[in-house]
């Protein structure tokens, strides 16, 4: 079984659109939406939820009013400023370190389970999708990403599916790290902007840290041909496969508004390019396998 990840240095580069298009083009696969903070892939796939599970994050402190003697100890030691003057814990600020619970002389602090999100297995028009929703203001620690990926892998093995497509979170933080382990090939999606190259380099170095093979792709490449050119030469110099360019194409948005994928709706320039790129990516994933 192979695992393909679509990642980007910053959000809004077209990562999910591409993941959706690959999902449509790949024959036998399972999809995993690991952008759990802003999960959007399901919007392209019209999922029917088969399974729903709770995801528990760090526990949160809760002070039992009737036992608390207002000694102030917990408030003194809490580094996260989570305990107010009236000894009520602010659930958003509490990071669940349990220091207060251990220091309270009256044992008035209870650490309570905290449902930090949900994750789902869904049936979609292109196959099974594992996706999740992190609750608002929760810590995006990568644990939920690991749960989603673990389930996708398990399903793939169970059903004898040979490819998992991972829509990774943007950025370079902890969730991205969790998305990159055990990946066979990562497609880095970027835009030809001044900041795009810089952001792409950061995420590529993260991928290389995990010894993941990467390919670079420039979306909306004609907005700044000069920077697109620079990205191409950067890829060549650094021994990264340059997967191609996708031109700016209004059909991409039109398809999205119709709740579809650009490769489903016809033969726009972008769709054509994405099909070519998919062929290249497919060859790279199964490179060396016979």
């Amino acid at each position, binding site marked *: 079984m192979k695992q393909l990840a679509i990642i980007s*240095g*910053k*959000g*809004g*580069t077209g990562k*999910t659109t591409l993941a959706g298009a690959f999902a449509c083009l790949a024959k036998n696969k399972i999809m995993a939406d690991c952008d759990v*903070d*802003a999960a*959007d892939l399901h*919007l392209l796939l019209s999922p029917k939820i088969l399974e729903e599970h709770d995801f528990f994050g*760090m*526990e949160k402190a809760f002070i039992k009013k009737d036992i608390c003697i207002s000694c102030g100890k917990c*408030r*003194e*030691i*809490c*580094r*996260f*400023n989570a305990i107010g003057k009236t000894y009520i814990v602010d659930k*958003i600020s509490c*990071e*669940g*370190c*349990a*220091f207060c619970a*251990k*220091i309270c002389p009256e044992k008035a602090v209870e650490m309570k389970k905290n449902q930090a999100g949900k994750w789902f297995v869904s049936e979609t028009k292109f196959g099974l999708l594992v996706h999740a929703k*992190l609750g*608002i*203001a*929760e*810590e*995006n620690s990568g644990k939920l990403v690991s749960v989603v990926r673990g389930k996708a892998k398990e399903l793939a093995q169970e059903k004898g599916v040979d490819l998992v497509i991972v829509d990774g979170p*943007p*950025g*370079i*933080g*902890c969730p991205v*790290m969790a998305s990159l382990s055990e990946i066979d090939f990562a497609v880095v999606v970027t*835009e*030809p*902007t*001044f*900041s*795009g190259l810089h*952001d792409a380099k*950061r995420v590529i*170095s*993260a991928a290389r*840290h995990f010894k993941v093979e990467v390919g670079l792709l420039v979306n*909306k490449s004609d*907005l*700044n041909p000069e*920077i697109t050119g620079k990205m191409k030469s950067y890829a060549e110099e650094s021994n990264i496969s340059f997967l191609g360019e996708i031109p*700016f194409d*209004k059909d991409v*948005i039109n398809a*999205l*508004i119709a*709740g579809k994928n650009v490769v489903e709706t016809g033969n726009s320039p972008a769709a054509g390019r994405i099909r070519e790129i998919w062929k290249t990516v497919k060859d790279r994933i199964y490179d060396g396998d016979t």
Partner: protein
Amino acid sequence: MKIAVASGKGGTGKTTLSVNLALSLNRRCCLLDCDVEEPNAHIFLKPKFLREEKCNVLIPEIDFKKCVWCGKCAEVCAYNAIVIVPPSGKNEGTGFVFEHLCHSCGACEYFCPIISSKEASSATEINKEIKPRRLAKSISERGSNQCSGSAKAISEKKKEIGKIEFGRKGKVDLITGRLNVGEIRAVPLIEKVKKNISLNLDAIIDAPPGTSCPMVEAVKGADYVILVTEPTPFGLNDLVLAVEVLRKLSIPFGVVVNRYDYGDDRTLKYCARENIKVLAKIPFKRKFAEAYSKGIPLVEEFPECSRLFSDIFKRIESEMFS
């Protein structure tokens, strides 16, 4: 006034809006780049950087000469960031602190029972030092007193997680938080960047995208939040989540729809239904996207746009003071 610019997802034009707003204010103001994973405001503003500061957090370190392998520190750590391996047979005891898991809560040092006899006299000092609220309050601030903490077998040391850069361009002071590559803790850095807000200057905060902790930390304490979105199904999905966060935090907010003519009307309908103020609709123009790709702020390339941004301010002010 403190205005935060946020967005449920990246790439909607949050930074562009922040920079253009700061430039069209036409009075001294402060722009805080709190998108610390990928700070980009300086690319557009092109300020002169004047100085920088380090941002540290506290991470414990075990002194194996003092440690008696009781395992208390590992036991109290809620994040499993410490492993203690007691000596067995010929093998010496050892221990590890996994820095990426540590949240700098301070529990391990506090509960370590070992205080070396030589330094025992300073033990009361340590307790005093950990206790006062002012010192315990911020994870990033306490480091200056670290020496006296070393009386314990496990004690906290400063670790740099990022930098804060101070720059200026015309009337705009730029304060950028930049997380070091490989670091994952954005929240303490954002907290420290925001400490630089001065009360007598307007502040514009460029918040990190999304709706998890870093975004909440960045918008906390703002007088008003501008949510930037684009009228696509993705944009709307993420806008709804961001609205939920701000309602939970009870911060007043309005929406700016970027590339409004480049999608459908579901976003505007949603705002109308939810009684959310639309502060501005910015049209999609290829020349705007090209200026962006070159790192040029709209108001510099197209001075006629500046009204669009100063109007956003006027709307917010009239809403806040009416």
